[in-house]
């Protein structure tokens, strides 16, 4: 997104585009990276519900898809809350860039 000079901004600091924060990619903040192990996933959607950054993608049928690494900040909440299958987590955290 190109920077605007003050004369080009709407008056009164009004932001006219809803959800425009999506243009700001927070994925670069990550130092840890979640990995989804699909065979251990029971589709409970806890990861989706608890992600503070709306970074768990969902298919049109409402099924869990992969992470959205453009925004995921790597906090690890999803991994901690994931029940997984028979005690085997469906999300593990790994060092970014490893």
């Amino acid at each position, binding site marked *: 997104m190109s920077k605007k000079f003050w004369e080009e901004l709407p008056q009164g600091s009004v932001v006219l585009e809803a959800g425009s*924060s999506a243009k700001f990619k927070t994925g670069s903040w990550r130092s840890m990276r979640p990995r989804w192990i699909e065979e251990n996933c029971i589709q409970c959607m806890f990861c989706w519900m*608890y992600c503070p950054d709306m970074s768990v993608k969902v298919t049109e049928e409402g099924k869990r898809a992969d992470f959205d690494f453009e925004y995921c*900040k790597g*906090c690890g909440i999803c991994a901690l809350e994931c029940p997984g299958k028979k005690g085997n987590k469906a999300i593990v955290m790994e060092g970014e860039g490893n």
Partner: protein
Amino acid sequence: MTTKPLRLKELAKGEDRFAHGHRMCAGCGAPIVVKQVLMATDYPIIASNATGCLEVSSCIQQFTAWKIPWIHSAFENAAATISGVETMYRSLVKQGKIEEQNVKFVSFAGDGGTYDIGFQSLSGAMERGHDMMYICYDNGAYMNTGIQRSSATPFGANTTTCPAGDAIPGKLQHRKDLTRIMAAHGIPYVAQASPANWMDLMKKVQKAFEIKGPKFLNVIAPCNRGWRTKTDDAITLAKIAFETCYWPLFEIENGVTKITSKPKEKKPLVDFLKPQGRFKHMFAPENEWMLVQAQEYVDAQWERLLKDEAAG
């Protein structure tokens, strides 16, 4: 409008009304609270937001995470602002200038903006009887300016304005029981919730939106920077908070108290305190009295709540 069914698989098909790309810290509890509140209903919502982490990080010139009409005015007047918006809406509907669309009016604010600085405007808006819901995300300090104590900061916590050291062992006062103070306003609905029990939180939001008049919801929102915890434990701590009865999940509807989720077994408060660096000094041998006093306070509050519930 029919109440939205709270099934995760169905909810996941819907669109978030709070977008990614916001700049809250990794692992912050506040955006989880906001997304759950907005997800609980399909009603059109208009929100005001007091200054604080949520406001500062969710709307930075040109970049807003909100997909609803949202206004930031100042730290001390989120409730006054939304009460004005609500009044204008009612007036325009009455004048026939706009159609009634069942718009819901909400204020979001941190505990500093609620318990302390915005308290007079909150109290006033509640007393005037506006049709609005005020939601406090309580992270227990003024986090945005660097962890200063607020009247919501729990006993013993180490903050930058009550630093644990030689002079004092952290905060010496107990937290203000704001939820009960709001109930004392005689408003139709007051509740306390936690994002770790999303179903309970969303049911409360749904219920509140069906009630006309002022509503108040107090939601615990872990902050890993201020609580000195890890980035992954916001939900785990928000759960231990009600399992220890530090943060009971209850509602007061028209004066009648109901505990909406009772822990099967009440865990010791240290389970909540131990993982948090802000309480670390309380585990030193000379500060054992603090652990005892903190537990006694939680026990007394819990007993009182049980009595309130029994009284009906």
